[in-house]
């Protein structure tokens, strides 16, 4: 196997813990990866140097990394990363980066990998309705779905070498529009509480918001909810034409489980469904299914979880 390189996942200027899952994935390809941390301030890389299973840790330092720009990041990382198989997270931003960086090197990219075995890589295709296993005959970039591989744990050397780099930024952020609420976006959350048409009115989403705030979750929605109610923005939509999410826990309330909704959330680690129809397809995918109206089940779930969190 050729050399492996992990590009650390950066969220809000810090190394995200999914980076240690990328190290585990690189180990599964048979090598101790060089971990490259894109940063404007090299101290950010210290967190990555704590992870076990890595070889060298390099802080790739450049002002380019203050804001995301695909061309700028790809050129600045290309200058630092050695040849080999590069692994990044399969977050929307890192998938974009992976595609640009691969094209820059004239190599291919394998997105959304969920399994690595005997040098073969497996990803979901057709929105998770089938799996595809591929082999590589040269260097490539591999993006790895979060919450699939175990963390490599801690116990790294803590040593970081700093390399200055630069890149050509093409786009310019004019304005940042923060979300009205401080709640997480579904694409960033580890727990998601989602509501569907079964919530009856958009005002009833406040019950989901209360639950979400109790357990530190984001609030999502089905397309029927988004299309029916102006108050529910498309940014909340999970599914084929919404966001693909991969949380530890997905709680679906009043959602039937149409194939296009499943497309966006079926790979969640644990799924809870609350639906008054025992035949709703969502129950075939639920780890914990509660056949009840949400009016009945949600207050019980809310108070039980609230007392646990207290």
């Amino acid at each position: 196997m050729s050399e492996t390189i992990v590009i650390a996942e950066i969220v809000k200027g810090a190394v995200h813990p999914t980076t240690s899952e990328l190290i585990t994935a690189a180990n599964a390809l048979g090598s101790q990866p060089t971990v490259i941390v894109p940063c404007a301030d090299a101290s950010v890389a210290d967190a990555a140097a704590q992870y076990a299973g890595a070889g060298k840790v390099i802080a790739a330092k450049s002002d380019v990394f203050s804001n995301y720009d695909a061309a700028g990041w790809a050129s600045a990382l290309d200058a630092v990363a050695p040849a080999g198989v590069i692994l990044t997270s399969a977050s929307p931003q890192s998938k974009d980066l992976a595609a640009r960086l691969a094209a820059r090197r004239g190599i291919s990219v394998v997105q959304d990998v969920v399994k690595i075995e005997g040098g073969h890589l497996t990803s979901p295709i057709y929105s998770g309705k089938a799996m595809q296993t591929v082999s590589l005959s040269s260097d490539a970039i591999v993006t790895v779905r979060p919450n699939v591989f175990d963390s490599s744990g801690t116990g790294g050397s803590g040593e970081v070498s700093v390399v200055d780099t630069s890149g050509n930024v093409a786009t310019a952020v004019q304005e940042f529009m923060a979300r009205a609420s401080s709640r997480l976006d579904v694409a960033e959350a580890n727990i998601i509480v989602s509501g569907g048409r079964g919530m009856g009115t958009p005002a009833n989403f406040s019950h989901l918001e209360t639950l979400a705030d109790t357990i530190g979750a984001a609030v999502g929605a089905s397309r029927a909810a988004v299309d029916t109610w102006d108050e529910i923005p498309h940014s909340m939509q999970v599914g084929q034409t919404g966001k693909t999410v991969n949380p530890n826990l997905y709680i679906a309330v009043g959602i039937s489980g149409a194939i296009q909704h499943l497309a966006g959330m079926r790979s969640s680690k644990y799924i809870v469904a609350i639906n008054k129809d025992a035949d709703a397809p969502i129950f075939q995918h639920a780890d914990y299914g509660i056949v009840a109206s949400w009016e009945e089940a949600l207050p019980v779930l809310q108070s039980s979880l609230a007392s646990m969190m207290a």
Partner: protein
Amino acid sequence: MANIIVLVKQVPDTNARIAVSGDRVDLSAVKKVMSPYDEFAVETALQHRDSSGGEVTAITVGGAGADKVLKDAKAIGVDHIVRVDCDAELDSNALQSVLASAVSSLGADVVYCGKSAADTGAGSTGPGLAERLGWSSVSNTISVAYGDQLSVVMPASGGNARVNVPLPAVVSCDKGNIKVRKPNVKGIMQAKKAKVDVHNFEIPASTISVVSHSMPPAKPAGKSYQGGAAAAEVAQLLRDEANVI
């Protein structure tokens, strides 16, 4: 006047059941449609043309069977339809190389595509094509305003960002708030008569090869409860069994 290209791909209908026979998916009985995000890309391209003038060319890569997706685009209102002839499965490097050749030979100020195709879900084509052309790129845009530069809105950590994008550029489109127009009778008649412009380009060898397709691993049957009171037990299990709370 803008010279606009939109990339479209034919994929299995998202409602279709996908079957695996032997170690390959069997799509012979599956209805094919334009990938849903490509519909947003086509609509964005048409709105760009309608606001600044110019022409829209839709391109797909595939065999003759893929002409239908181009006719669908024509029926909605694109001006020209081009198929890059290729029957083989291509990896991202080969596909983007061919598309870069096609875009360079046709010429364009901007290329729109869907944020990902419904079959692979990869989302590699837009940014990869831009890199090969040396253009700027933005992905997952939810709105686009047209001018000498583009001004797009796209997700950023904690919210959305409005971003200036110099042209030429490749823009991959998410759903956003635009309404996709439907073909009218005149459009459908024109599409029937329209000729697909077929091009051939050199295709590099793929370095990623498919070993097998399989059905997703069956999930063990979950626990099922009747009545809302069971939510208390589920809450306990989320903490003690699943360890997610």
